């Protein structure tokens, strides 16, 4: 087993992202600041661990999003995303 076996999809972050965002983030689109590829966040490649996760561009591997939690705080690093589009239709109902 190598690190590739540990790779997941952006879809695996759906639950965690609902703790931070009010949207079903896996269907939202973002642009990679590295290669410009546009993908739904569910298509990101994800490496998850107990504290959080790193999500990468499926095109070039650039880190798009890093998320971690600890001691009652969430940490988000979104610098790999040139932009992020949030569609009102994907707002969580409730």
């Amino acid at each position: 087993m190598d690190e590739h076996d540990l790779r997941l999809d952006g879809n695996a972050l759906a639950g965690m992202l609902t703790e931070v965002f009010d949207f079903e983030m896996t269907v939202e689109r973002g642009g990679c600041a590295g290669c410009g590829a546009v993908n739904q966040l569910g298509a990101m490649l994800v490496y998850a661990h107990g504290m959080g996760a790193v999500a990468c561009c499926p095109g070039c591997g650039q880190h798009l999003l890093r998320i971690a939690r600890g001691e009652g705080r969430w940490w988000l690093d979104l610098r790999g995303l040139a932009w992020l589009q949030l569609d009102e239709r994907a707002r969580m109902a409730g």
Partner: protein
Amino acid sequence: MGRLSWRLAEVAEVRNETPRVVSITLEVPGWDGHLAGQHVDVRLTAEDGYQAERAYSIASTPDGERVELTVERLEDGEVSPYLAGELRKGDQLELRGPVGGYFVWEPDRGGPLLLVAGGSGVVPLMAMLRRRAAAGSQVPARLLYSSRTLEDVIYREELDRLAGAADGLTVTHVLTRAQPPGWTGYARRIDAVMLEEVGWRPGERPLGYVCGPTRLVEVVAGHLVALGHDPARVRTERFGPTGVP
């Protein structure tokens, strides 16, 4: 606030699917339905407060407050040995969901459908096939499903029944480790030739859903794109380093 919160579900039934796989029917008060392919996060808390969370695909179609999960027991897992071993009717579980909108299919999305599963990766695809059947959908669908042995095939009888309905679904089994006497089906790992024989031609513009252990998913998705399928129509759900059928 629309954000999802953790809630308590009660186990209504635990059913053995294979020697390593169980289906768990949960009663979830206030459950408001879900889409085929969505999952829930399950959280277990130990006596010392340590918590472990895992995502499990929903296997069932919407049915009031009942939600069914199908879980494979991973011997070195933190959560699955409890769910697929110790959990009993009447026990309570903490869960959050439904979540995920990417690896989802509903009849109005059309097809034709190419579903490729490895092992327990069949679970969200089964939710799609159950949804398709419940809706009376005629969307043509092909399931290519890789298991180690015949005994490891999850939902075997139900898949036979669904495929026998002659409503446009075909099911092709792949047995990678051992085959029963007289087996005439595929007996090797899924490869490009198999995908060409079983799948749709790229010009038919199928919607592809590939789910299973990470390595299988990446091999299959790579073959599909190399065969000329539109990457934007091939959706993947990697389960990580679980058993490799």
